[in-house]
């Protein structure tokens, strides 16, 4: 009797050990994966960095015929489209989060949140098709001529609004990116607004603040770390977004300050040229672009995560 219990115990602890080892192994694949991604990208990108050196970051050459490549135009396009996206998406997301947490009647909150989140479920290729075939022609026809003729002659900023009225270009890409990141920023903002202690808000209302003043002077300062984290999360998404941008940015390897001019981003260049790249240096340069993108999004997402972790820690400390 006692012998059989002993074997059972022994078998159980072996099973425990195996189970723990198996799950830990699975968890470690996540680390292995990120290290492998970095190693492979660095290894394959090395020839390009080695050949072009620092010029890879400062020159604007992109010529497969003469084998001259550099990253500056793609980096510029990636940053400027993401910047446009944030300029549009941040206030809109704030507005939606304000509406959902403070204004909307209870029965409307969930449907509105779900609908906004569905924007994130739609595949990016659908945004691209819609942008190219539906939005761009309409924009070129109706809005662009008006904007160019009215704002195009303003001093300093006028140059931004010039370009051929073809609907596609840097601005269109930025606008579509904005729509795509709104659900991500909104959902973080909504979550952090929801955890503001009710006492804080009631105190502010008690001394006669309006809803807006409570929002702007109490809720926003209290949640600013989380809000910035949400914005960084949206930025990380915008930087790496590929298919939607590829459809509407026009794919030109030129830097232009005008927002209606075609451009390119790191991801759109990869999507367009990678499977057709001929020669090791061409492929290596494209992978080098991928590495730069990975590095930048890694840093941005890491900052986002660290900020959101601080919010969580504060929440945890209170309860």
């Amino acid at each position: 009797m006692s012998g059989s219990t002993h074997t059972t115990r022994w078998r159980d602890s072996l099973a425990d050990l195996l189970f723990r080892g198996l799950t830990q192994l699975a968890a470690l694949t996540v680390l292995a994966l990120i290290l492998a991604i970095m190693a492979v990208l660095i290894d394959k990108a090395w020839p390009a960095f080695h050949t072009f050196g620092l010029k890879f970051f400062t020159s604007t050459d992109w010529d497969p015929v003469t084998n001259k490549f550099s990253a500056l135009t793609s980096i510029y396009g990636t940053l400027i489209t993401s910047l446009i996206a944030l300029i549009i998406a941040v206030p809109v997301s704030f507005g939606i989060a304000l509406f959902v947490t403070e204004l909307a009647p209870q029965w409307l909150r969930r449907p509105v949140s779900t609908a906004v989140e569905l924007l994130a479920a739609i595949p990016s290729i659908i945004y691209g098709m819609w942008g190219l075939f539906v939005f761009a022609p309409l924009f070129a026809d109706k809005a662009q001529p008006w904007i160019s003729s009215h704002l195009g002659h303003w001093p300093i900023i006028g140059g931004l609004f010039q370009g051929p009225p073809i609907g596609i270009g840097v601005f269109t890409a930025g606008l579509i990116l904005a729509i795509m990141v709104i659900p991500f920023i909104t959902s973080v903002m909504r979550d952090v607004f929801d955890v503001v202690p009710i006492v804080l808000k009631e105190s502010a209302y008690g001394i006669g603040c309006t809803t807006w003043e409570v929002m702007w002077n109490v809720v926003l300062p209290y949640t600013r770390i989380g809000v910035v984290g949400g914005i960084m999360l949206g930025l990380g998404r915008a930087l790496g977004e590929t298919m939607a941008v590829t459809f509407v940015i026009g794919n030109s390897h030129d830097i232009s300050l005008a927002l209606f001019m075609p451009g390119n981003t790191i991801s759109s260049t990869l999507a367009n040229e990678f499977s057709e790249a001929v020669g090791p240096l061409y492929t290596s340069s494209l992978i080098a672009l991928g590495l730069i993108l990975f590095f930048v999004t890694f840093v941005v997402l890491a900052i986002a995560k660290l900020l959101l972790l601080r919010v969580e820690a504060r929440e945890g400390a209170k309860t």
Partner: protein
Amino acid sequence: MAQNKRYLFRRGVNLFNLGMSMVATVFGLFWLAWLLWTLVSHGVRALNLNLFLQDTPPPGAPGGMANAIIGSLMLTAVGVLIGTPVGILAGTWLAEYGRANRLASLIRFINDILLSAPSIVIGVFVYGVLVAPLGHFSGWSGGVSLAIIMLPVVLRTTEDMMRLVPDQMREAAAALGAPRWKVTVFIVQRASIAGMLTGVILGTARISGETAPLLFTALNNQFHSTDMSQPMANLPVMIFQFAMSPYEGWQQLAWAGALIITAAILILSISARLLLRANTFEK
């Protein structure tokens, strides 16, 4: 008098900004409605039974997208079949063994970054490890890149859902003498099965629309092929190529494909939500 003016001004600012917040909400929902309307109006015209029976045609000829639909199902299946077990096991470790543990925090952190990492970079990575060394594009490499995108989604949801299970249940089972793995599998995972399933469904929805990582892994195939070691037709890349083509018939097919894939994804994500809601209400 001056006080009254100040009051009216504050009221005005308040009213204006709250109005703007409603405008922002309408602005966000407006794009959703426009997108869906575009899909339906363009897609329904191109819908017919042949889409599911015939393969992708050469330009100008009639045809369907049966090969792309089958290819997409196979690629997604490979992604789900690899991504799900690894994700669930890893999430289990984080929830049960990695509560106050440096390594677990690091894995959690990296996983959240992978969750939002650009999918095109995953494609480049898989190209570097599977496509370039073997010398050709293949269905397997496409499936693997989808699995890498699936993994963080499943991991995150599994951990979150298992953590919702109260510790008293674990302690009660342990007190009865159950070994730890039995506590985890038969008590904790059983209690959170609906939530874990939600994660799998959401992950499936996410990878079935992914285009970028397939561009240089599975590539595409004009013909019917179920050979995973060869380039494989799939809906997203087909939509991309056909939409960018100058041929009217191909563009029509692209719209039909876009409608089918979006409908499938929206059904998946809405059912995941309903499933989760039904099961959180019980508690």
